[in-house]
């Protein structure tokens, strides 16, 4: 029997304990799931959408988005707070289905922005501005977005999940092997590219906090 791992490291300890208990005790899950504190080897990673801290799940699996803002009836890999047994089991079921499909087809999905998300891109967040700009120009997975912009993957996942909830994204299938080949931005390339040097010089001159390399 295939076993799946859910990383619960980003959740508050009381919620992590609750999830561990439900997974251990639920007969509906049939022992197919176990929890982990390591994102790197997990099939799925609980992402605390309400938390503001930078993420540490750059190498994690599929996101299980946890938030007090989800409605109970919402479908997908979303878990509403307060965490309930039926909600968790349903969300894990969705994840299980995605993992099975991904495993069988090696297919992941890329998202692209359909229109500018005015409310999500404010003057206070350069990261959101940069993520929205990339998504307005090219289809990306959260992992690709994170690599392109050198941002934490869970920040990209949270941003994309929020956009998806409000219907700003359109999705397309992508070949996983191609997606994984995207190189991380090279520091050497950043230094030598005239275009990047120019952008860095403008940012530095105008006092922008991001990407002055």
């Amino acid at each position, binding site marked *: 029997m295939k076993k799946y791992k859910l990383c619960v490291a980003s959740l508050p300890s009381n919620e992590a304990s609750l999830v561990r208990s439900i997974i251990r005790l639920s007969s509906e899950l049939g022992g197919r799931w176990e929890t982990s504190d390591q994102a790197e080897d997990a099939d799925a990673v609980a992402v605390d959408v309400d938390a503001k801290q930078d993420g540490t799940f750059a190498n994690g699996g599929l996101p299980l988005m946890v938030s007090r803002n989800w409605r109970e009836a919402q479908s997908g890999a979303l878990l509403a707070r307060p965490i309930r047994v039926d909600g968790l089991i349903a969300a894990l079921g969705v994840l299980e289905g995605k993992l099975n499909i991904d495993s069988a087809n090696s297919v992941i999905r890329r998202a692209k922005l359909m229109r500018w998300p*005015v409310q999500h891109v404010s003057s206070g967040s350069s990261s959101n501005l940069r993520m929205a700009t990339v998504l307005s*120009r*090219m289809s990306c997975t959260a992992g690709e977005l994170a690599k392109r912009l050198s941002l934490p993957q869970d920040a990209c996942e949270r941003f994309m999940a929020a956009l998806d909830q409000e219907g700003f994204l359109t999705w397309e299938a992508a070949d996983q092997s191609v997606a994984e080949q995207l190189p991380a931005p090279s520091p050497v390339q950043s230094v030598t590219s005239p275009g990047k040097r120019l952008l860095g010089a403008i940012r530095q*001159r105008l006092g922008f906090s991001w990407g002055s390399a």
Partner: protein
Amino acid sequence: MKEYKILFTGTVGAGKTTAIGAISETPTVSTDVANLDETVAKASTTVGFDFGIITLEGGDRIRLFGTPGQGRFDFMWKILIQDAMGLIILIDNSRPAPLEDLNIYLDGFADALKKVPCVCGIGRTEQNRSPSLDDFSRHLERRGLLLPIFPVDVRKREDVLLLIEALLAQLECNLMETE
């Protein structure tokens, strides 16, 4: 020393001259004359172009140009947009038909929009909530365009800088696509 260009365009009274002045390191060179358009409450209006400068480390310069707003000067738009690294469209939301105003510039710069990064700044949104920023976003979507949109008070340097930041984010994407 290299020179680059960012172009500010938009409706009469939207604040192109003020926006350039908010970030230029030199006093804006202006070609304003007395305003004879009674529909716009301002004493003077730009008939040539405004001009400001930002000097980068190493001596390279960003030249900031503001176009005249009136459609009858659209022949100058095509000249000024040549070789621009970015276009900023400023719309005054207190005017009678802001979405139609936006169309004038989207049409006037249609060719440039295929390759030049562009951002829209909407002014006076607090006093004039309709159309909303989301209305602008959907309007662009209907036209097959996806451009960053921000509320802007051109008297505030940080608001103008946000528009520049949005252009830089698009230029960053251009680099990703070519590298």
